[in-house]
């Protein structure tokens, strides 16, 4: 891991916010930073090559974009089967996230899937399909009843 230079930090500080919605967004940012556009583009591409920037793109409020329901599926999977089941679930297009986590007190589940669908019923059907496909019958779907916070992380302050 190569530490970030001050210049790179300044670039990240700008880009972790909003890209100006203009034809030449990088020219505008470069001007703010007091560097020229080709230098800025080079720094951004380098940060992408190092995996620090995943991509420059849009993040949606998916509820407003029509993907209305999301459920966290929690599954209790025998330890020896976690890898097989995790991979099977990850293949499913309606599953956006799939993680293995260790059980904790009062919570025996060890596989987590984020499921997105048009409605809660659709999420339930997807979960049932996953259960049948993997043979894992012990699971619960946790719908979010309130959203308290959702924002992008600002790692450079």
């Amino acid at each position, binding site marked *: 891991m190569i530490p970030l230079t001050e210049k790179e930090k300044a670039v990240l500080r700008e880009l972790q916010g909003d890209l100006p919605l203009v034809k030449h967004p990088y020219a505008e940012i470069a001007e703010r930073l007091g560097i020229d556009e080709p230098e800025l583009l080079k720094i951004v591409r380098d940060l992408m090559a190092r995996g620090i920037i995943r991509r420059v793109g849009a993040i949606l*409020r998916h509820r407003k974009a029509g993907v209305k329901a999301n459920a966290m599926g929690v599954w209790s999977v025998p330890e020896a089967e976690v890898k097989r089941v995790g991979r099977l679930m990850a293949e499913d297009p309606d599953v956006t996230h799939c993680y293995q986590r260790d059980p904790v007190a009062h919570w025996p589940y060890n596989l987590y899937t984020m499921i997105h669908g048009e409605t809660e019923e659709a999420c339930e059907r997807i979960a049932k399909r996953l259960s049948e496909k993997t043979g894992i019958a012990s699971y619960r779907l946790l719908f979010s009843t309130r959203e308290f916070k959702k924002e992008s992380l600002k790692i450079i302050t």
Partner: protein
Amino acid sequence: MDDTDRKILNLVQKGLPVTSRPLEKIAEPLSLTEDEVLERLRRLKEEGIIRRIGAILDPRSLGWVSTLCAARVPEEKVDDFVGVVNQHPGVTHNYERYAYYNVWFTLTVPSWEEVGKTLAEFSKKTGIDELVHLPAREIFKVRVQFEL
């Protein structure tokens, strides 16, 4: 939102090229002008469908750690608890879900040590002791784009 909006959103979620005129790449395959794309993006942002257009960073690449936290909070204390937790800049997603643990949030900080310290501080400030975190042992999939 019309079909053209959906096509634009699908492309812009996948990522813009890092070039002097990134919107060219969106406009061209859809036979639109850059100005038309800009106008639509501004509207979609205004309507709140687009939360942000910018760099999506990978905190892990800088050695940061992420974990899912879960708390059992009595109904009447939820607002206070959430008020304290949400002030932390490393808390990016926070939801109420009805289960044994009813408040679920993600925490991203520079180290595992910091996770422990932060959660201890949350407990101290709020009096909520049933607060656990569930680090990922294995990640099978992460996809944040939605095909519209």
